[in-house]
């Protein structure tokens, strides 16, 4: 079952035409192949994105796009809409039709000693479970070949115990995931990283070798983990820019662009943005009223999530208890910093119960809620701001990644 998102992208028709040609050149679906147009000298690096309630119509402040996947080195392809664009994770995950998602294309299964490999990928508010596969990926005019991805599939083997004891819900259905997949284009090249290459109790239990319904944790070399597709591109492979215009509050949708590359073309220069290098955990700092917290920029978080009612004096909502409900709009200020670079961010938080009163709306630039001891600059932070994410060890005109710039 497919839930196509409305195509309200604010992009020049010429660019849309180019996207169409690139997708058609993959040979998938019912589009006629077109081999009369010569390839562009530099890749089209602009992918339309839209903020709306998503393919399950249950999201707020969700930023979605489409991705084309192909069986590696074939023209057997599928284009999937309603994929969440997430700078807080790394790698492509597609929800299988078994989970109510759009993916029906059969992709090659990765194995360990002949057994299928499964993954329990760690998100903060849930985990995704399913097999490790490979695909050729096309987004805008950018191509990534033979990339390990996760297919999210609740019917794959059996969810292992070390995955369940994290306590968070299994997000393996269209309702629970709220998307047909997640495009993780954050600052790291692999989803788990060096931790998953270790054995024994040092391993965080993400990758499994599954014989029938029995899965055992296996160490996973970096190159075989689920990969951020951006470093696989031939060009424009050092990072991304999420570009969203300022949003009225509240509105049903907001259109913008995901631009690939930093300083590789005339449309992705750094300009006057400040550059904030991030640490090995993927964090920088944010100070609020004299206290400093680890912080991060995350398009996959749907609000400003910071502090607690006790510290801010802002109560949580009677109805939507995970969000703040100040009596009057709270005008707040916090300082983001990394090393000697800092920038003060002014932001507003208003009553989420009131914001949600009209269910047609899905874009809220004043949505906030409590957090643990971290400061989460979620999607409202991106409204009216171009946010650059540079991938680890990649060169850019602003230095070597990983960093954020805005």
């Amino acid at each position, binding site marked *: 079952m497919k839930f196509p998102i409305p195509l309200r992208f604010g992009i020049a028709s010429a660019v849309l035409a180019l996207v169409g040609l690139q997708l058609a050149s993959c040979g998938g679906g019912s589009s006629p192949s077109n081999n009369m147009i010569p390839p562009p000298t530099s890749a089209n690096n602009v992918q339309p994105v839209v903020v709306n*309630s998503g393919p399950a119509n*249950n999201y*707020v*402040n*969700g930023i979605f796009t489409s991705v084309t996947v192909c069986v590696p080195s074939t023209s057997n392809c599928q284009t999937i809409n309603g994929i969440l664009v997430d700078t*807080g*994770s*790394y790698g492509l995950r597609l929800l299988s039709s078994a989970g109510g998602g759009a993916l029906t294309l059969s992709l090659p299964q990765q194995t360990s000693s002949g057994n299928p490999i499964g993954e329990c990928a*760690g*998100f*903060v*508010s849930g985990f995704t479970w399913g097999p490790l596969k490979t695909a050729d990926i096309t987004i805008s005019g950018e191509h990534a070949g033979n990339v390990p991805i996760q297919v999210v599939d609740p019917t794959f083997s059996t969810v292992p115990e070390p995955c*369940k*004891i*994290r*306590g*968070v*819900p*299994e997000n393996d259905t269209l309702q629970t995931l*709220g998307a047909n997949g997640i495009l*993780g284009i*954050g600052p790291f090249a692999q*989803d*788990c*990283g060096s*931790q998953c290459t270790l054995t*024994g*109790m*040092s391993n*965080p*239990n993400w990758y499994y070798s599954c014989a029938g319904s029995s899965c055992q944790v296996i160490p996973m070399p970096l190159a075989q983990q689920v990969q951020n597709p951006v470093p696989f591109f031939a060009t424009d492979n050092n990072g991304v820019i999420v570009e969203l215009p300022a949003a009225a509050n509240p509105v049903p949708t907001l259109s913008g662009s995901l631009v690939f590359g930093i300083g590789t073309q005339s449309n992705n220069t750094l300009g006057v943005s400040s550059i904030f290098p991030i640490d090995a955990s*993927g*964090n920088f700092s944010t100070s609020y009223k004299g*206290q400093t917290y*680890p912080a*991060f920029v*995350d398009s*996959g*978080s*749907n*609000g400003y*999530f910071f*502090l*607690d*009612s*006790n*510290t801010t004096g802002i109560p*949580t909502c009677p109805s939507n*208890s*995970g969000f703040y409900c100040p009596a009057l709009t709270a005008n707040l200020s916090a300082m983001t910093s990394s090393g000697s670079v800092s920038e003060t961010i002014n932001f507003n938080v208003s009553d989420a119960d009131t914001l*949600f009163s009209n*269910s047609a709306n899905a874009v809220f630039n004043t949505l906030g*809620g*409590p*957090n*643990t*001891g*971290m400061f*989460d600059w*979620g999607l409202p932070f991106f409204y009216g701001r171009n946010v650059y994410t540079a991938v680890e060890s990649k060169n850019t005109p602003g230095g070597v990644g990983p960093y954020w710039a805005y």
Partner: protein
Amino acid sequence: MVPVAWVLLLNLPAFAVLGGDASSLRDDQVHMNASLRSTQMPAYTIHELRTPAGTIVREFAASGGRIFAVSWNGPAAPDLRQLLGPHFEDFQQAAAAQKTRGPRGVLFIQQNGVVVQMGGHMRSYAGRAYLPDQLPTGMRVDDLR
């Protein structure tokens, strides 16, 4: 042949941590194969465990030894069944029943006298679970880090 340490782990009883007494701390240390450091504050003690996967778990004990809060921070999500003890099943059900149009990227569950919060992002997980009625007088939620 099963290693001896593994046998010990399997033989551990089910026990409480959040809401449990100081003896559960030792159980946690064994279960997580963690190193332990304790810091005495005026109104409570922080027992800090570091798991082999690099995650810091802090357990906050009142003067009588009862653990009123746990927090964690690091590259791997902790064994929450172990840390929440008898509160785990309730938490799991509440987390799975989250309403639509809810928070994404954080988790905030408040029920039956227990608050559980999670935040962070892939490769960097932070969280805390506490019994709000049992925080020492004057202690702030923001201190639970």
